[in-house]
């Protein structure tokens, strides 16, 4: 690519900005591990990370992580324990922000990571929830990162693995007893989608440099609403890029197709 950073690097940088200083962050697999590391090194020096494998950390791992269970993520951990203990904190509403990977998301922020097509004989069997549904239901707010394609951003997911705002009707989460507040952003390779206060249908909040609103709408599986003022996503700062490349020196996550 001509630009000085990859789509993945931009998504990591944008994702890291969702982490507020002091947050207890439920860190998911892959890019979110980098987003947490970047935030800790920038604007959120007192954030803590929870890893469902059974870890709590403050400092990001010193070495590269292929998974959250890799040895560098344990060295210097604040707590190495059972998964159910980590989930206990989230079930108590103590997790401020969660990251969830998604294969398919719809306009109400519902994620499908289970079945494309009839679950009895699916067209595509996806890996499943992992901790995704737990994060979507129990964390105070959450974010998902994904490649922006029509087949991924769909009008309505055929299977809700991790609920966002359900059918989009006001108060759907509260009515169904969901503890957390739901999704706050869908960060894609083209832009950032956000949700109205209290939930509902996603709208385009910003477009990444080099892309247009029309391109984003054409790549979205429903008639995507726009913010009154769709801005350009601020590009990764040099500091953010430096941090990303320190924690992903080989570009395992940010410079190769996975």
């Amino acid at each position, binding site marked *: 690519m001509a630009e000085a950073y990859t789509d993945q690097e931009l998504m990591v940088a944008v994702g890291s900005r969702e982490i507020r200083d002091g947050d207890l962050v439920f860190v998911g697999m892959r890019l979110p591990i980098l987003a947490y590391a970047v935030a800790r090194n920038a604007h959120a020096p007192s954030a803590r990370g929870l890893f469902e494998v059974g870890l709590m950390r403050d400092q990001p791992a010193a070495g590269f992580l292929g998974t959250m269970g890799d040895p560098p993520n344990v060295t210097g951990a604040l707590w190495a324990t059972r998964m159910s203990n980590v989930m206990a904190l989230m079930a108590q509403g103590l997790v401020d922000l969660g990251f969830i990977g998604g294969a398919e998301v719809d306009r109400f922020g519902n994620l499908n990571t289970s079945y494309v097509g009839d679950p009895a004989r699916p067209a595509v*069997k996806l890996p499943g929830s992992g*901790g995704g549904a737990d994060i979507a239901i*129990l964390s105070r707010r959450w974010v998902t990162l994904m490649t922006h394609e029509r087949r991924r951003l769909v009008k309505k997911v055929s299977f809700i693995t991790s609920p966002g705002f359900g059918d989009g009707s006001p108060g759907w989460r509260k009515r*169904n007893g969901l503890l957390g507040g739901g999704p706050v952003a869908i960060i894609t390779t083209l832009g950032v989608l956000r949700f109205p206060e209290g939930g509902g249908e996603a709208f385009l909040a910003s477009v990444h440099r080099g892309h247009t609103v029309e391109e984003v709408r054409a790549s979205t599986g429903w008639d995507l609403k726009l913010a009154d003022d769709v801005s350009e996503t601020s590009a990764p700062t040099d500091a953010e890029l430096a941090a990303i490349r320190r924690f992903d020196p080989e570009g395992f996550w940010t410079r190769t197709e996975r």
Partner: protein
Amino acid sequence: MSMADAIARFVPDGATVAMGTALEPLIPFAAAHELIRQGRRELELVGPISDALFDQLIGAGCVRRVTAAWVGNVSEGLGHCYRRACEQGVPRSIEVHDHTNFSIALALWAAAWNAPYIPTRTLLGSDILGRNPGLEMEGDVVRVRAVRPDVAIVHVQRADELGRAHAWGPLGVSEEAGLAAERVIVMCEDLVDASSLLRHPNRILFPETKVVAVVHEPGGAHPSPVQGYFNRDHAFYHDYAAASRTREGFEAWLKRWVLDVPDRATYLSRIDVQALRTNDG
């Protein structure tokens, strides 16, 4: 006891087997490969996530049902054998009882305490509820029915012949799986004497009365990481994902790394184990 003996004696066809209980680390691949070599059939696999191990057993046709939250390849994505089994019934169709990571842990705790179920507020609003008879709504909570494995196979860093085991690093659901299971097979990097383990009785992972076999199997968790011993072999996971994309590719991979390999020592002789040694304690 040898892995071959342990699997032959304690894991019959049709058994419900918990594996990969520590999630990404300490995955008992050596046991799974022996299950495949012995042609075990009709297994129910229980675990939170499985990083390639469940995919291999499914591809080898050993599995009747998967009771888990996630089946794939953590660094690479999809599980291709899992896909073929669910999408095309190749090599056979399997039943899937979907869970979340939290709910499978609660299901094991329920079994450990001999409670019929544990109620929870997770799963509310998820279609997973309709996909697992062990999950039922009750008013404003979900009842997660107990899941009791016939056997849990757990890889640890240190154990003695009597089944006193020390594991460290993140533990996932290993402790509750050991308590919930009818019996436990322990695999260890180092077989040590009792005194070094009992000097720290708080670090004993589960009661020795559950342990029916201890297998000294260094490197038995490769390519998964073992805290204090090995880093994760990311390239090996990558190569497995690439090979298993097609049925033929998987069969070739299985022949090379499992079927034509008599034991773990031979398997390890084909890997640069030293390159995987970790300095993280």
